[in-house]
Every structure is written in C-alpha cells, then in structure tokens.
C-alpha cells in the first residue's frame, strides 16, 4: 500500500470506504478519492499505454488534463481517472491495451519507432493501391481511446439558460475573491470551478494556504448572491459573452449544459503546469510538481520512494518539503535557476530507475519531479479575440487585448502572494460588478418589455485596480536531449525538428503534419512546448513563431449534454384523438403528424368517388386578411388578377418568387367586405405569411392590410364525393342549392351547431366537395357529427394517400414535388394565369422574359403503355436508345378509379407534345414506353363531377 497516514489537507472521508474494480481486480478507496488516486493508493503505478508506441504510462499531472490517465468506466470511454471520483461498484479498465495493461504486444511499435516518425504514413502504402484498405484496417486497430457501448441508453440531460451579472470562471483564491467582490457590490454571481473543491492551488499548498482557501470558500458559499457550481467548466465564450458551462454536478442530470449571457465574464483559471522535454520524460515516475503535491496533500498517496526534484520555481521548492513529509527520500534537488538540468530519465519501461543530470552525474530514483514553468490557459480569451503575447521574462503568455466585458485575475493575470492574488481578485470582482451594472442598465433601457430605466445609463468606471506583478522565471522547454512533447499523440521533439526541416515549419502546418496538440488536452500541456521546439528548430523566438488558435470547448463535453433534451415540436389537429383511436397510419409532414390512411387507401378513394369521404386538412395554411387593400396585396403575391373578386367568390392562384419559380399555390376566398381568407400549401404556410408581411412592411407600408395566421384556429375538413351535398345539408344552415352556392364560392354559417364557420366549394379531389372550416375548439365535434350523420350515406374518412391519388387522377401538381427549385411558372402549363398587364407582381420581370422561352421543361401527364406498370417517382425519362436524360416522373400511382398506372412528370419541350412517346427507365434498369397525355387530368378532364 502506498496510502499515507491522514494528511492535514486531504479531501478523503476515511469513514467511508468504497470498492471498485480495476481491470477485474477489486480495489478499495475512500470517498473523495479519484480513480487514479485510488489505483495508486493500492500500489499500482501504470494506468495506461500510449497511443502509438503503447508505452506504459503513469500519472503526469494527476488532474483533469493528465494525458496518461484515460480509463474506461463501464460504458463511459475516455474517463479522466485523475479527475473522476470513485463510486462504489465502478467497473474501471485500462484502454488502449492488448491483451493487457502489463503485457502489450503493440509495444513492439516502440522498437521500430525510429522508422515511424511523425507523418510516416504519408510516405508509404501508396502502392499497390489495392492494398491500402488492408493497411487502413490495421491502422484503425491502433485507434486510441475507449469503447462505445451500443446498448447505452439515451440518458436524461437537462439544460438551462442563465443571465448572471458576473460569471467567474475558476474557483481558486482570485476567482473566489472576485465572486465575493462582485457579490458584495450587489451583483448576481455565478462561480464555476472545474474541480471538485473550491480553492485551486491552495488546496495542495501549505497549512496557511488551506486556511485561506477554507475561509474564502465559506464566505462564497454563504453569500446569497453567489451560485457556486463545482465540478463544472466554462467551456466556451461566444458572441456577446454568451458562455457555455458544462455542469457535471447536478443532481438530476449526469451532465448538463448551462448557457449564460454574462454581463461580465471574469476569467480566473489559474495556470497549468508544463512538462519538460527530455529523454525518457514519459517513464512512469516522472511527474510534475503539482501532481506530487496533489497526490500527497489531497489524496494521501505516496507517489514513490526516492526522488529527484528539478525545480525552477517556488512550487518546485515547496514540493521538496511535501515529499519529505511523506517519507520520500529526496535524493537530489536540481535547481534550474542555478544552472542545473535534467538530461534523461532512465530505467525499464515501467519505471524510472535513475536520472541523468546536466552535470553528468546519475542519481538513482524512482520519482522525478519537474517544476519548470506554466502554460496560461487563455482559451476563453482567445475565443473573445485576444491574441496573447509571450513574455520571455516570465516565460509564459499574457492576454493583450480583451473586450471590455471580460476581466482576468489570478495566475493568468500575474503573480503574487495569496493575499495579493485575493486582493486583485476582489477588486476585479468589484470592478466587474460596476461594469455589469452599466451593461444591465443598457439592456434594460433598450428592451421594450423591461421596467422603465430612469435617467442616463452610466459609463464604464475607470479601472483603478492595482495590477499584479510578474515574477521572473527561467525559460525552460527542452533539455539537451529529445523527449516527448505530446504525450497523448506520442510526438517527440525529434519529430518536430524533422517536420520543420521538411518544410512543415509554421505552427499550424507542424500541428497538422505531426498531430502534436491534437489530442485530448488540446494543447494545454503541449502547445507552448511545441512552439518552443519549433522556434528552436527554426532558430527564432517564440514570439516570432506565434501560437496556434485555441478552439472551443475548453474541456470536452459529452454529446448527451450538448444534445440535452430534444425539443422537436409536434403539431396535431383537433381531430387527432379520433385518428389515433381509429388506428390511422401516421405520416410526418414537417412538424405535423397526419393520417396517411386508415388501412386501405384505395378503398378510401373508391368510396369517396362513389359515396362521400371526409379528410382532415387542418394543416392547410390559412391566413385571415383584413383591410381595404387586401386585393392589392393578393395581386402582388399571385400572378393572376384579384381586384374584382366579389364577396362570396373563391379563386385559385399561383405565387412565384422574384425569379419566376413557382413558390406556392392555393385558393383565396372573399368572405366579407375587406375580409379574405387565403389558403396555402401545408408546408408553405409559415413562409407565405412572412412573404406577405415582407411586401406589406417593406414595399407597401401604406397599404391597409392585417394578416392573422389562422391555420389552426380553424379545423379544416374536406367533405368530398357525390353525396357530400346531401351530407353537409344535414348539418348546416347555409343554402347548398347548386345555384345559390356554386363551385368556387364561399359561404359563412353554422355547422353542426357551431357558429362562425365558413365553407367553400373547391375540387382538389375532382369530386363535388365542400371544405368546412370550423373553430378548432369544436373541430372534433363537427368531424364526429359528420361521421354519424353520414353513416347511411356510406361515409368514410380518408387520409393523405387517398387524397394524393385523387389529386393525381385530376392532374393537380404539388409544389415541391412536381415542381422543383428551378421550375418557373411557364413550365406548369398555366400561362393563362400570368397577367403581365398588371402593373406589378412578384416575379413579373422574370416571367415577362421566361414566358417566351421555348426551352423550359414542361409538367405533363404521362401514362405508361402497359397500364400495370407504375414507375417509381423519380424514374428518369431518356431519349430512346441513349442514357441522355430528358425528363423524369414526378408523381405516380396505380389509379383505383381508372385501374391503370398514372403519372405526372417533367420533360423537355421536345418531348412534351401530347401523344409523344417517352422511354422511362425503371429502377431495375428496364426501359418501358409511355405516352404524354393531352390533359393534366387523367380523370374527368372536363371537371363535370365537381360542378354538379
């Protein structure tokens, strides 16, 4: 066991013992242990094997960013074992090992490593080309990472929006002080800490550090204005301080996404300790000073027996005392500030055994601690447009230009004692609160619904904060030997030198060629060393080489949390309960759920043609138009004329976009003086409404028209069939006499006791039909009354499929099916509806030209020679004997009425003349002949049935 006695700062609850499995072996842990600390406490050192060479790896940073600590936990791949807490019964296993962690065959890759330089695969496997797929399969075997379990259920993920005055990213001393400073100034604060405890680096520091952390944490937790989110990460900062937060600590969701519009963002993530590049720097036992301090002070784990400490700063220095207190023999302290250096870690593959120093001596040790400097995690600042600048004196990057709604504090802003950092944090919080007040006031003043804001919006206060200093720090990146730069990707400094020599010598090219910085830590450990090594290879400075752009998210976030609960609105008509009770087969049409049929669409067609059928057509778009200028609007939207439509009249129209392409069609009825109702296609309802508003608001604001979308205010029921008049007559007070209420007319009245209904006679199905529009609160009542009253007439409900068949029998085209995004109006055979003598209408200029064109395809009715053959919709029409496409079938069905196959199609003009013979290519490749018909309507082309 390597568990130490109780440590003063440990975060373990030793009264609660947990057990879990590690590669099939049962291990114990205390509550508060991370998976990695528990594995180490049980005497293990190796957690994983590396990606390419499968080298054994132990802890390096012992925190979230550790590149060597990825494990599989049950069905959860790529778990950060140095961050994830142990839970009772967890099933943890090593990833990327075969057959086992201790013995891995692929480690043989390491032997041939000198040939597998970065990017080697670009230079081989070109020939024979046939063999590459086989090579590829082998390469894929080497894919790192855990396993996805294809039986994992879709878990519950919550989301939330927030509007904090001040969002503080980072719960270390400066972050906590900033939260307090802001909250004490009256701001609503959200404080987000990446780890499980507030306190940051104080947690693994001295007794005084921990006391300071505890005091701050207590104050933060007690403050009403501060919402604390632990084990949560600000993963991104987007436009206008739109910030994403991954919360891994909420009781009802495994991980949830919070989207915060922060008036001010305070970035206080601290610093990330940077590894040193030297030979053997990935051997188990080589770790950063923070790792050793966390293991000893927080988790009471003894990381080794005999240590060499390579230090360039106070954190390294203080680690020496921690090691000694833990009973570790500190064999040598090598001070970089006085010229000391570490050249190589040597030993077997599973542990450091001796350390070669710059002075030529070799020291036996199983632990090598390095403390050589920092990476400033400026990711959130980059996302805000900052371009951090390198300061060679401090050996790290600092932000250079921030927008006014972001402030930084803590280690990312400078150095200082705990007191100095806290003071800077507090004044930053106060300043952030003052700025947030300005933003809040501006938003309140500009937002119509908000409370009145009296007086002038204040200006941003002057920034009088005392800036933090910058401690001098030696620049340490690479020793005199080559070593790993990117542990996750197995990319070494030698690879980077080689790539630079080959011409991949800009920071972006070298990243792409070698994959350095592309791994799970996304450069947090690797980027600065990569840049430094490249600078060395090029003989330039770090500033000259520049840095790569950090991309979001700051820390990986699960797809589950991002997806959240899926909001996919569903729309149903008021008759939906009846459809469901009568086992309608549903079909999705956009957001609408509609009945496709009730079992037998052909029978539904026949019954409608013989008796009477009803269909729920509620999704049909309906716009209520009121005002003196409605006819002008209609004239503008439709290609035909509308100024003379009398009250009680209904007219069909086609709408074109400005490029002459057919956009929508439908009928509009003149209900009363200055009152019309327009119908649109179901899918076009929203678009036509916005289109009409656009004309009214931007081109003709002087016109008096009010548009109200009433698609679902009315439940729409089409009653069709020779007996429809007889049926409707039983229910309504409207005079249905054919002379009083003609085809293409509209009437208002009462239906089945429901007032304020309207109905019109139209004929999409080709039969006598009345389309009833009743207030939706009574839609189901009217539907059921129709069925009851129509029982003796042979009434049957019909679905969308029967309607499609009947409309095809009648040859009505469907916008978006028989037309496409390029079908101009002259193609659909309705040039009579294009009224170029109107002063203006949408698409006029284009139609004026295209109406004379002879090369536009035509929509035509088509029948196959063999009446039993129904070509699939989308079957191509070719020039006989060739593969040259001259058209396609756009709609096709077997007509139950005509007992033959019927089609609509688009063909080039050369083949569009009635009687032309066409060659249709079936899906099977077989070619069949077909004929272009004289009329679009296959059935009752004179329209006698609907005028009775």
């Amino acid at each position, binding site marked *: 066991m390597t568990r130490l006695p109780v440590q003063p700062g440990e975060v373990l609850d030793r009264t609660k013992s947990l057990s879990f499995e590690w590669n099939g072996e049962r291990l114990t842990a205390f509550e508060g242990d991370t998976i990695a600390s528990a594995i180490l406490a049980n005497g293990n050192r190796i957690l994983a094997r590396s990606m390419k060479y499968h080298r054994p790896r132990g802890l390096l940073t012992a925190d979230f960013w550790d590149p060597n600590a990825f494990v599989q936990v049950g069905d959860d791949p790529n778990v950060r074992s140095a961050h994830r807490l142990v839970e009772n019964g967890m099933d943890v296993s090593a990833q990327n090992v075969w057959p086992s962690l201790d013995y891995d065959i692929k480690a043989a890759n390491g032997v041939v490593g000198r040939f597998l330089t970065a990017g080697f695969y670009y230079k081989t496997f070109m020939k024979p080309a046939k063999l590459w797929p086989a090579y590829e399969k082998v390469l894929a075997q080497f894919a790192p990472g855990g396993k996805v379990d294809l039986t994992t259920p879709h878990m519950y993920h919550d989301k939330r929006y927030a509007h904090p005055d001040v969002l503080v990213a980072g719960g270390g001393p400066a972050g906590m002080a900033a939260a307090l400073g802001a909250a004490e100034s009256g701001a609503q604060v959200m404080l987000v800490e990446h780890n499980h405890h507030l306190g940051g680096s104080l947690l693994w520091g001295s007794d005084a550090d921990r006391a300071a952390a505890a005091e701050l944490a207590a104050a933060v937790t007690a403050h009403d204005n501060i919402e604390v989110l632990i084990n949560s990460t600000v993963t991104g900062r987007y436009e206008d301080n739109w910030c994403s937060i991954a919360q891994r600590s909420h009781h009802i969701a495994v991980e949830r996404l919070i989207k915060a519009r922060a008036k001010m963002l305070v970035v206080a993530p601290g610093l990330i300790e940077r590894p040193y590049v030297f030979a053997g720097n990935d051997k188990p036992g080589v770790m950063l000073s923070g790792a050793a301090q966390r293991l000893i002070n927080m988790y009471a784990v003894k990381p080794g027996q005999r240590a060499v400490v390579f230090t360039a700063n106070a954190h390294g220095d203080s680690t020496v005392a921690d090691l000694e207190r833990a009973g570790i023999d500190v064999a040598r302290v090598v001070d970089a500030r006085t010229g000391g250096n570490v050249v190589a870690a040597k030993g077997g593959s599973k542990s450091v055994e001796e350390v070669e120093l710059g002075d030529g001596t070799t020291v036996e040790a199983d632990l090598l601690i390095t403390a050589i400097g920092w990476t400033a995690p400026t990711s959130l600042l980059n996302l805000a447009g900052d371009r951090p600048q390198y300061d060679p004196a401090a050996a790290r990057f600092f932000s250079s230009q921030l927008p006014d709604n972001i402030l930084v504090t803590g280690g990312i802003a400078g150095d200082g004692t705990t007191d100095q950092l806290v003071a800077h944090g507090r004044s930053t919080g106060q300043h952030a609160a003052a700025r947030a007040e300005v933003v809040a006031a*501006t*938003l309140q003043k500009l937002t119509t619904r908000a409370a009145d804001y009296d007086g002038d919006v204040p200006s941003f206060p002057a920034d009088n904060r005392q800036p933090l200093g910058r401690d001098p720090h030696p620049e340490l990146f690479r020793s005199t030997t080559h070593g790993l730069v990117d542990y996750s990707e197995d990319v070494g400094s030698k690879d980077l030198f080689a790539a630079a020599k080959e011409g991949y010598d800009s920071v972006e090219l070298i990243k792409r060629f070698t994959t350095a910085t592309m791994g799970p830590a996304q450069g947090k450990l690797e980027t600065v060393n990569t840049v430094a090594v490249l600078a060395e290879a090029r003989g330039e400075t770090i500033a000259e080489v520049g840095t790569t752009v950090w991309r979001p998210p700051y820390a990986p976030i699960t797809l589950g949390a991002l997806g959240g609960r899926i909001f996919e609105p569903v729309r149903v008509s008021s008759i939906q309960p009846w459809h469901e009770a009568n086992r309608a087969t549903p079909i999705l049409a956009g957001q609408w759920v509609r009945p496709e049929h009730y079992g037998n669409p052909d029978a539904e067609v026949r019954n409608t043609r013989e008796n009477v059928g009803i269909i729920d057509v509620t999704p049909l778009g309906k716009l209520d138009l009121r005002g003196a200028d409605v006819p002008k609007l209609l004239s503008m939207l439709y290609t035909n004329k509308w100024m003379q439509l009398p009250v009680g009249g209904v007219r069909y129209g086609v709408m074109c976009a400005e*490029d002459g392409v057919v956009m929508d069609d439908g009928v509009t009825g003149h209900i009363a003086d200055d009152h019309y109702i327009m119908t649109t296609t179901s*899918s*076009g309802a929203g678009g036509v409404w916005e289109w009409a508003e656009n004309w009214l608001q*931007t*081109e003709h604001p002087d016109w008096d028209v009010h548009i109200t979308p009433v698609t679902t205010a009315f439940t729409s029921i089409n009653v069709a069939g020779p007996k429809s008049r007889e049926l409707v007559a039983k229910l309504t007070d409207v005079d249905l006499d054919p002379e009083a209420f003609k085809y293409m007319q509209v009437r208002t009245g009462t239906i089945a006791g429901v007032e304020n209904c309207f109905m019109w006679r139209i004929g999409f199905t080709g039969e006598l039909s009345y389309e009833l529009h009743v207030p939706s609160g009574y839609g189901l009542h009217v539907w059921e009354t129709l069925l009851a009253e129509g029982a003796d007439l042979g009434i049957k409900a019909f679905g969308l499929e029967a309607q499609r068949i009947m409309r095809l029998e009648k040859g009505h085209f469907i916008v*978006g099916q028989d037309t496409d995004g390029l079908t101009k109006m002259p193609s659909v055979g309705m040039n009579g509806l294009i009224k170029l003598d109107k002063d203006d209408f949408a698409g006029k200029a284009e139609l004026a030209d295209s109406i004379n064109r002879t090369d536009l395809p035509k929509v035509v009715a088509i029948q196959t020679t063999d009446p039993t053959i129904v070509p699939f919709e989308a079957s191509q029409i070719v020039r006989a004997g060739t593969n040259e496409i001259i058209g396609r079938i756009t709609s096709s069905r077997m007509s139950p009425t005509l007992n033959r196959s019927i089609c609509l199609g688009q063909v080039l003009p050369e083949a569009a003349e009635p009687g032309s013979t066409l060659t249709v290519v079936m899906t099977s490749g077989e070619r069949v002949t077909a004929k272009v018909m004289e009329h679009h309507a296959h059935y009752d082309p004179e329209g006698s049935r609907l005028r009775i």
Partner: protein
Amino acid sequence: MFGTRSFSFSFERSALMMLVPCPHCGPRNNSDLRYVGESHARPDPNAVTPEEWRAYLYWEDNPAGSLRETWYCRAGCRQYFTVTRNTATNEFENHPLPGNKTGAVDPSFHYVSSSVSPSVPTTSNAAQETETNS
C-alpha cells in the same frame, strides 16, 4: 442572398448566439430572428432589362466589413428591419451591448428602419430537405 430575391436556404438553424438589435423589441438572440440578406432596392419591374433584373436577383456585395442587411424578428415582434453589421467582426453599428468593443458606451444608441426588398422565406419543411454538404 436569402432570397430577397429568390433563393433561400435553411434558416431555422442557430449559429453564433449574437444579440441582434431589433428596433422594436430591443436586443434579441439571433436565433429568434431570420436573416433575410443584403438589403438591395427593388428595381421597377417594368423598366428593367432581364439582365438588370437578374443582377438584382443574384449579384451580391458581400463585403468583409460594413453591410446593410435585413432581418425579420420572427419569434418576437414580426417586423422586418434593416441594420448595419460588420461582417468581419459581427458587430452591429451602435451595438446594443456595451463591452464587446473596447471603448466607451454610446448612450445615444438608436436604430434605423427602412424600406427593404421582399424575400421568400422558406419553411422549416422545405428547409429540412435542403441538401447539405457531404
């Protein structure tokens, strides 16, 4: 392009969650609005050649900088309005939220609304079938 003139593609998708200065509602998340496109005056259809009309339909200014453009406040006030945005930075002229730009707040923030040309909106249904890159 979104078809002011005639074409349009999917817009019921969210992008950068920037605040768009709606002159009627105040600042709103852009997901509440529909982007209509560059604002171009509609020529008199009776006085143009086909080529001039197509220039109106298809040519774009597409500057990397200041652009006059039209938005529709779809989930809010349902008004069309025209604003100026810097397409390189996505900052609106007279940005509603102080602090995004370095510098002082402009308390005299106001909006300009003007006549713009009509567009064809698509519906979500049509948009759903829009070909994506693949």
